[in-house]
């Protein structure tokens, strides 16, 4: 199970990184989102993977480590704020730079790099 979980995290990371390296703002945003899923899963798993062990007192006999859950929750919220910001920034950049290339029209002119 652990191997499978890590594999999924790895694939999410790889897909995210691949998109991060694209030249348009939109895939970069998608890439950041994918990367943040991967990272959240990674951080989450640092407390171990346990089934039926919700950290609610009384709900399970041996609750799992709750701390990573709290950390990931914070990370999700911060990630949301950041994603929202970068999405709006992409819109603004399109209108300001006249292109959705990450380097603006400067990047557009030079073509594939």
């Amino acid at each position: 199970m652990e191997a499978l979980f890590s594999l999924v995290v790895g694939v999410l990371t790889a897909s995210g990184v691949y998109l991060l390296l694209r030249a348009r703002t939109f895939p970069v945003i998608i890439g950041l989102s994918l990367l943040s899923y991967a990272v959240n899963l990674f951080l989450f798993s640092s407390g171990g993977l346990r089934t039926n062990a919700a950290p609610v007192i009384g709900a399970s006999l041996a609750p799992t480590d709750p701390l990573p859950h709290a950390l990931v929750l914070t990370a999700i919220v911060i990630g949301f704020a950041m994603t929202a910001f970068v999405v709006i920034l992409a819109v603004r950049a399109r209108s300001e730079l006249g292109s959705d290339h990450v380097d603006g029209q400067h990047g557009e002119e030079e073509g594939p790099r």
Partner: protein
Amino acid sequence: MSQHLIALPIVLPMLAALVLVLLAGRIPDRHQRLLSVAFTALLVLVNLALLSRASGGEVAFYALGNWQAPFGIVLMLDRLSALMLTLTSVLAVGCVLFACAGDDTRGSYFHALFQLQLMGLDGAFLTGDIFNLFVFFEILLLASYALLMHGGGKARIGAGLHYVVLNMTGSALFLVALGVLYGATGTLNMADMARRVASLSSDQTALVTAGGLLLIVVFSLKAALLPLYFWLPHAYAAAPAPVAALFAIMTKVGLYAILRMQTLVFAGSPAAPAIDTWLWWSGLATLALAAVGVLAARDLRTLIAYLVLISVGTLLAGTALQSPAANAALLYYLPHTTLICGALFLIAELIGRQRGKAGTHLVRGRRLYQRFLLGGLFLVAAIAVAGLPPMAGALGKLMLLQAVEGSARLWFWPLLLLAGLCTLVALSRAGSVFFWASYRGEVATGRVSRTQLSGVLWLLASAPLLVLFGGPMSAFTLATAQQLAQPQAVIAELLGDAAAAQASQFHEIPGEAP
């Protein structure tokens, strides 16, 4: 009340931001500015009080929510954090004064964002918890994104996009590193982590090394080390002047974090030498390439951005030396270079405004309206930043040069001295173009306002003051470095003597875990 003083550098700017947003549009700009300046000035006072408290040598902790470490989050005040806090607020006063002359109304919520930026910075300097550090990094980053693009415009948005995306990737890596460190040590408190790192098996130490190195990559991105600095010149050159000036501290947050990790969390662990190697070579290369960049710059703002990079390279290569003497030297050099780079950004703005279309480009232009005033300010700042006497830059450089020993000198001395020379050549060219080689006729716009001038003078005053009080200041930084050299004391203070004994055992025999 006095025990709560430690939380004030975070609470106060927060409060200021709330007040400023709530009153936005309800009170005139003038009052907004007054409030913002007053809050920032108050912050300086608070930080000075903290500085005097920390200079006693005791590490003070503040358990948030009254939960004891390592379970709750603690704020940690030692000499280093007090120094950084004071520096930040002193820099901020200069920037906010300058911004009050009109830069603040070019976009929305300038002062609130500015205060939140301060809150993020202060939190990063105070926190003793590694995840909380992440949270404050995000606060300061998001505030810096907004401030960088304050007022908009093609250059700012373009540079801002790069800055934002790179830092978001950096934040993702930060979280991975946190996951590794938590998974390997099971704690988030820095002192506790240091204690546990010291007693790990070699197997887990390898994981800590991976996490630690990854963390250093993230901090190197913030500190702008080679090969992660390329975003900086564009971003800093594009930012509004008071923001660029404030950003002079941003690279130092990365430095601070690295210093904290190296002296506390990873002190003596196998991760530390690997990190030092990276810092040393990368710092030197940054120093060299930044010196090249200074020569290549065709615009004064870009030039100053490279000067920031020179100081980054110098400081981080100095950090890699891991000796109290080197740390003392770089902590003496740090406030000076930060404040002067800040002042230079402000001066560049003033020059640009009075040169009309030529702006800050290094080409001949029309005569400045206030040639002697600006020339004088530029001269003082240039001398200071180039590390020439009679300003504190020279003393800082002397201390750094002296602190380097053995074969490390072979690299550090020539590079540091040559970087100084490049700075001098570039700045003398810039100065002679701006102030001597002008066409007839003046551009009568952009008269320096009193608040702008006071902001610049406030920052510039640091150069002579640090010389005048060089003795006490260097004694303080030496004491700081010595405090940093004894992480066991911090651990003992926070977690009790037994924990410290466990850690110190390790520190005596580095590389061999029990």
